[in-house]
């Protein structure tokens, strides 16, 4: 009960129906400040649907999604618009990369700053002090984040021309540009080679420390998950079947049966 006030996101009884299909059924989980929490499970278990429900892409059929933004009262965000949720401080990446392909790397990051700036057309025309200052701050912050993910040299390339691993890192940097306190990563290591995955592993841990964000990730790469997670939730067929530390999960017979035993993921 001592750490209760540190909760950032609390999800209880989350349920999502698509027509007659129940994609998620009464899922509970939470994440506290400073944690890296993984959400794992076989393909089709409903992990990405959980992400879509808590980031405002879907409105959940039932349940509560409550976020505790630092300094603000707890808020139930079911059905809230995605851009509002982002400005409250939750950002995400996608399983399939969704950068803005016809924008440069720098612009992709700068667009992440959108909800933290307020320059209007009129400010821009009149070059008010605010607009100049905001522009400087945006560019400075964008370069800082690009340097963090090792992309500062390619700032003026079009994002579509980057190598695959670089695009993934850019997506993470863009999410960080929205200044979140909780970062959601959907299969960040998908399609990466072992070397890239190791670097990603370090990057995620470094981001948590430097940017003061908690991280919730969906991942199939068990080595990555076991290495960096503080806690793990396991889903199967839309239901939560287990939770615990990496060690507990590795030894949980239900998980082994449902997941690790049935299909081996490298």
């Amino acid at each position, binding site marked *: 009960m001592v750490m209760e006030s540190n909760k950032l996101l609390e999800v209880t009884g989350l349920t999502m129906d698509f027509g007659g299909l129940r994609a998620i059924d009464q899922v509970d989980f939470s994440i506290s400040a400073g944690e890296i929490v993984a959400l794992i499970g076989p393909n089709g278990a409903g992990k990405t649907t959980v992400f879509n429900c808590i*980031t*405002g*892409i879907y409105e959940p059929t039932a349940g509560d999604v409550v976020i505790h933004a630092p300094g603000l009262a707890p808020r139930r965000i079911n059905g809230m*618009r*995605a*851009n509002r949720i*982002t*400005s409250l401080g939750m*950002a*995400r990446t*996608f399983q399939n990369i*969704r950068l*803005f*392909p*016809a*924008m440069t790397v720098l*612009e992709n990051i*700068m*667009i*992440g700053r*959108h*909800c*933290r*700036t307020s*320059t*209007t*057309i009129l400010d*821009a025309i009149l070059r008010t002090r605010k607009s100049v200052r905001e522009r400087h701050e945006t560019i400075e912050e964008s370069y800082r984040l690009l340097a963090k993910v090792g992309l500062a040299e390619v700032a003026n390339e079009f994002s579509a021309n980057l190598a695959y691993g670089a695009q993934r890192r850019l997506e993470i940097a*863009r*999410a960080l*540009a*929205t200044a979140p306190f909780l970062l959601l990563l959907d299969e960040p290591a998908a399609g990466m080679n072992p070397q890239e995955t190791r670097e990603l592993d370090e990057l995620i841990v470094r981001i948590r420390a430097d940017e003061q964000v908690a991280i919730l990730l969906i991942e199939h790469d068990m080595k990555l998950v076991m290495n960096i997670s503080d806690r793990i939730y396991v889903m199967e067929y839309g239901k939560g079947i287990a939770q615990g530390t990496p060690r507990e999960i590795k030894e949980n017979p239900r998980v082994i049966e449902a997941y690790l035993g049935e299909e081996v993921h490298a």
Partner: protein
Amino acid sequence: MDSEYFFELLCGGLVKGSIYALIALGYTMVYGIIQLINFAHGEIYMIGAFVAFIVSGVLTLTGYGGPTVLLLAAVIAIIYAAAYGYTLEKIAYRPLRAAPRLSPLISAIGASIFLTNYVQLAQTPDFLPFPELITDFDFMEPFSRYVSSVDLVILVVTTLTMIALTVLIKYTRVGKAMRATQQDAVMARLVGINVDRVISATFIIGSALAAIAGVLIASRTGQINSAIGFMAGIKAFTAAVLGGIGNIPGAVLGGLVLGIAETLGAGYISSAYEDVFAFGLLVLILVLRPAGLLGKAVKQKV
């Protein structure tokens, strides 16, 4: 002699084309963001011309000079048209955002008919004489065979407007948000962009451009009525498709190509077939390059 005639036609075509381009920009920007053909866009242009007519009529009585009156009338027309565009989107399109694509299209046609008839009832179905507010410049005297003073104003204003639009889209915060929304609306929301507001901004900017076009063309043709929006709208739509709908430089190119083709066809063959050249060209381009001159063919996802 012959080349002189050609040059004369070319200048006329450029002027006409730049007006088409201004209106086409509104079509293409809206299409780029919400994949809707805003068929009521031509009516926004008509309303812009009407407001300018009314305002300039009142202001002329106060004794201001032509250019001052025109400038004030244009500013008020822009504000009015922008308000109409904003409201139109709120009432006719936003409630249908999640509906099948055909529904907002039908709503757009309905809005177009409504606005035409509304102006016809509230004002008049007759042609009204638009005052000559742009007086001939002395320095244009030697060139007046090719380009009248009004034409010069039109070319200068459209060029400046397009430069301003380019700067807005490329470098401002709103412009970035518009490009992001165009490329991936869901992702735009997820990086914190208020997509609804971006859509409103798009309608406001597009309508303002249409109002500028309305004021300019009314000053050139010298008359307006409640039905001018229809043909102008269809032509500008053609221009947008010609250049590749959703593509901003494409709309400008399409407008110019259309204007020049029309004027050349009318000048060398017969002015009775002016519209035939315009739409014939559209058919030709669609057969040869279905995505338009600058449009990219939609990539098939594998």
